[in-house]
């Protein structure tokens, strides 16, 4: 799932390990999210959104929403 996680992380100068610790997941999980090898659960997506203080869809592209409504 396309996302802006890597950009958001870089803006804060966090490593993948830093972000993983803040989210309670492994560095491998953060890497998998950034490289679209893992689609997060709803719970993890909400945790990420809360951490960056953004709506979920500002971080994760919703492939089911028509472009003009995004």
């Amino acid at each position, binding site marked *: 799932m396309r996302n802006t996680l890597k950009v958001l992380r870089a803006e804060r100068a966090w490593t993948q390990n830093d972000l993983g610790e803040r989210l*309670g*997941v*492994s560095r*491998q*999980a953060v890497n*998998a*999210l950034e490289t679209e*090898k*893992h*689609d*997060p*659960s709803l719970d*993890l997506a909400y945790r990420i959104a809360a951490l960056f203080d953004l709506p979920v869809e500002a971080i994760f592209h919703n492939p089911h929403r028509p472009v003009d409504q995004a």
Partner: protein
Amino acid sequence: MSFAGLFPPATRRYLVTSAVSAAFYVLSIKAISWGQPQLSGPVLWGAILVPALCIAVQLWATLRLMAQVDEFMRALLARRFIIAACLAFIVASTWGFMETFAQVEHMPGFMVYAVFWVAFCLVSPFIRTSH
């Protein structure tokens, strides 16, 4: 870096449990093979249950690891586990057909467990995504 610092606690528990169960498995098989001529009745049946219990403990440790790691690692482990189990079923049943219809050498049933872990190791490098 120490063993404790090298792995997260869940992985550490899994590795220790796996190593202990594998050691007991090998030792119990050796002991049964060595003592088989003298063993009989309930003692023999009890001895046979030891390696079986080691396998159960190893599988329990693997399932506990799956429950304790994060969702990405859980998904990876689960996918690898399921595909390895499918391959082990295929190999075991194919071998069974070959034994029945082509008179190939008998494969002991307990080898299925080894086949499962070989399959797990073989598929793991190719299963790197959770979907």
